[in-house]
C-alpha cells in the first residue's frame, strides 16, 4: 500500500465502523514544543488521520487562532527540521497516518526531494498546501508521487464544476472540501446549503471527501458526516490545547463517545 492509500483506508475504516472519519488538526509544537509528541500521541489515538500544521510567518488562509498558534510556535523555534526530528524520535508509536499542512515557502526552502524522503520516514503520508493551486503544483506533486506520498487538493464552494472534476481527479488520500467561503476558524456556523455542495463533491470524487473549516461541535461533525466521509477539526481543537485542556474528551465528544 502506498503512503497516500493509508490515508484513504483510515477514513474508509472509520466509515465502515459506522461513523464519520475524524481528522484533528494541531499546529506542531503549540502551545509548548516540549509537549509536541505527547500531544500528538493523544490526538492520534482519537483521530483517524492527523493533520499537522507547519508554522509559517504569513498564514494567509488562516484565521486568528491558527495565526496565533503559528506565530507562537515559530517564536519558540519550531521548524520543519525540528518537527521531522521529533517525529523520527517517536517512530512506530503513532499509528494514525499523518498529513502535513504547510504553506509552500517552508517546503521550497527545505527542498522537495529531501522533504519527500523525510516525510516518508516519519510516517507522513500526504501534504495539504493551501497556497499551491493545481496549476503550480507539478514539481511538488512529482516529488511526492515518486515516494507514494499524496498531495491533497482543496475544493471550495466557489470552485466551478469543471475545476472540481480536475481537482478531485488530481487529489490523493482524500478530497478536502472547504465548507465556507472564508478562512479557518470561523464561528458563524456552517452554511445552510452545505449538504448540496458536499453531495456534489462526493458524487464527483472517487476518494473519501473530508469537510473542514468552521467545524467545532458534535452537531457539526454529525451534520457533515451525513454528506462527507470525514470531518476536519482545527481551530476549535487548537483552542482546547491552548487552554491547557486534555484534548481527548473533546475529540471523543465530537464522535458521540
Amino acid at each position, binding site marked *: 500500500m502506498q503512503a497516500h492509500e493509508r490515508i484513504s483506508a483510515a477514513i474508509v475504516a472509520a466509515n465502515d465502523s459506522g461513523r464519520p472519519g475524524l481528522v484533528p488538526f494541531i499546529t506542531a509544537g503549540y502551545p509548548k514544543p516540549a509537549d509536541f509528541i505527547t500531544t500528538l500521541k493523544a490526538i492520534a489515538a482519537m483521530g483517524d488521520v492527523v493533520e499537522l500544521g507547519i508554522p509559517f510567518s504569513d498564514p494567509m*488562509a488562516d484565521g486568528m487562532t491558527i495565526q496565533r498558534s503559528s506565530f507562537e510556535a515559530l517564536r519558540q523555534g519550531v521548524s520543519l527540521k525540528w518537527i521531522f526530528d521529533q517525529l523520527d524520535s517517536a517512530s512506530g508509536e503513532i499509528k494514525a497516518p499523518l498529513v502535513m499542512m504547510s504553506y509552500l515557502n*517552508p517546503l521550497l526552502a527545505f527542498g522537495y526531494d529531501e522533504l519527500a524522503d523525510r516525510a516518508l520516514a516519519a510516517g507522513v503520508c500526504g501534504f495539504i498546501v493551501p497556497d499551491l493551486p493545481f496549476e503550480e503544483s507539478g514539481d511538488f506533486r512529482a516529488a511526492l508521487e515518486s515516494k507514494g506520498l499524496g498531495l491533497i487538493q482543496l475544493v471550495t464552494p466557489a470552485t466551478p464544476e469543471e475545476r472540481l472534476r480536475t481537482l478531485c481527479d488530481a487529489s490523493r488520500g482524500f478530497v478536502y472540501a472547504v465548507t465556507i467561503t472564508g478562512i479557518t476558524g470561523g464561528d458563524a456556523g456552517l452554511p445552510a446549503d452545505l449538504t448540496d455542495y458536499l453531495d456534489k463533491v462526493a458524487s464527483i470524487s472517487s476518494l473519501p471527501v473530508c469537510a473542514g473549516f468552521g467545524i467545532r461541535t458534535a452537531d457539526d461533525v454529525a451534520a457533515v458526516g451525513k454528506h462527507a466521509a470525514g470531518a476536519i477539526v482545527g481551530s476549535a481543537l487548537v483552542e482546547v490545547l491552548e487552554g491547557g485542556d486534555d484534548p481527548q474528551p473533546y475529540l471523543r465528544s465530537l464522535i458521540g463517545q
Partner: protein
Amino acid sequence: MSSLLQADEASALLAAAIRGELPDERGRFGPFGGRYVPETLVPAFERLEAGVREHLHDPRFQAEFRKELHEWVGRPTALTFAPRLSKRWGAEVWLKREDLAHTGAHKINNAIGQAILAKRLGAKRIIAETGAGQHGVASAAACARVGLPCSVYMGSVDMERQAPNVDRMLRLGAEVVAVESGDKTLRAAIDEALRTWVTDPEGIYYLLGSAVGAHPYPYLVRELQSVIGEEARQQMIDLAGGLPDVAFACVGGGSNAIGLFYPLLGDDIELIGVEAGGTGDGLGQNAATLATGTPGVLQGSYTIILQDDDGQVQETHSISAGLDYSGVGPEHALLQATGRVTYISAQDDEALEALEELCASEGILTALETSHAFAAARDYARQHPGARILIGNSGRGDKDMPTLTKYPARIRNHASA
C-alpha cells in the same frame, strides 16, 4: 543574483521583456511570478485575468483612464530640472515629478486605473492594503471618484507613523482597518486583505497597490504605472534634449520603479533601483530584498524575498513605511537576474540627509521613500561627473512629518544675511 539564469537564457528573457512579451500566459517573468493563491481565490483571479484581458487595452477603457489621468490626476506631471542640485553634485539632474500627481504620489495612477476596472467588472466594494498610506489615500480617492465603497487594511505600526494619511483616508470616505497581526506593517496588511477577499471573492475587488502578488497584478500595475516612464522619456527628449545616462527609482514592492523603467528598458540608459538599507546589513535591519534576499514564494508570487533558512519570511526595517516590505515584484527579480537593472540600497540616515538637501536646494519636500533614490543618485554623480541623471520623484513628503519631527529641522536666521 545573475547566477539564477544562464547567460543565454538571461539575454533571451530580457529581449522578450523589451518586446513586451512578459509575463507569459502563466503569469511568469522567466522563472519569477506565477499565481500561488488559496483555492477559494483561484476563480476570482481567473475572472480578474479575463477582465484585464478584455478591458485594459480596450480603447474605451483607455480613453476613460487617460481622461481621468489628465483631468483628475493632473497628468502629465512635470519634468523639473534641478539646477542647484546639479551644481552641487556636478551632474545634470532631472526630476520626474510624481509628487505633483493628485494625492501626492504615483500611487494614484494605478488606483484610478484599477478602480475604473473594478467598476467595469461589477465589483460591489473595493479593498486595498497600504504601507505608507499613499496607496490607501489614492484608493480612497479613486473609489470616491468612481462611486465604490473602499476599505483600507493598514498595519497598526504604519498607522502610527503615517497618521496624517489615516485621517485623509477617513475624510475621503474610506474605512481604515487596523491590522494587528504579524509584523503589523505592509506585509500583514496584504495578508489581511487577502483573508478578507476570501470571504467574498465575487463581490470584492482587491485593489493591490504595488507590482507584487499573484498574476495578473504585477502586469496590471506595471501597465497602469508605465505612464510615468512614457511621459518622462518624451519630456527628456523635449526639455533636456536627449535621454538620460541613468535613471533612479526607489524600490519597495517596486511599482514606481517598474513604471519608470519599463518604457526605458530598450534604451541605452543605465537603470538603478534603490532599496531601503535601513540601519545595516543584518537580517531584519533593512528591506534590501534584491540585494540580500533569496528566491521563494510570498503572497502569491515566486520572487526574491527576505527569509531565513527555514523559509520563514523575515521582518524588515526601514525609516520609510513604503519601502518596508520583505518581497519585491517578480519583474524586478527578472530584471536583476538578467542584469538589465542594478539594485542597490541607501540607509535611513543617507535618505534623511538627501531629503534635507533636496528641500534646501530645490524647494521640494520629497517622500522618505523617494529620498533613498536621491541618496544613491548623489553617490553616482560623484563617480560620474557630468552625467545626465533622471530621478523618479515618486511622492511628496508631507505625510512623513510625524517621522521627520523626530529629527529637528535646522533653525536658520536669515535677517543678518
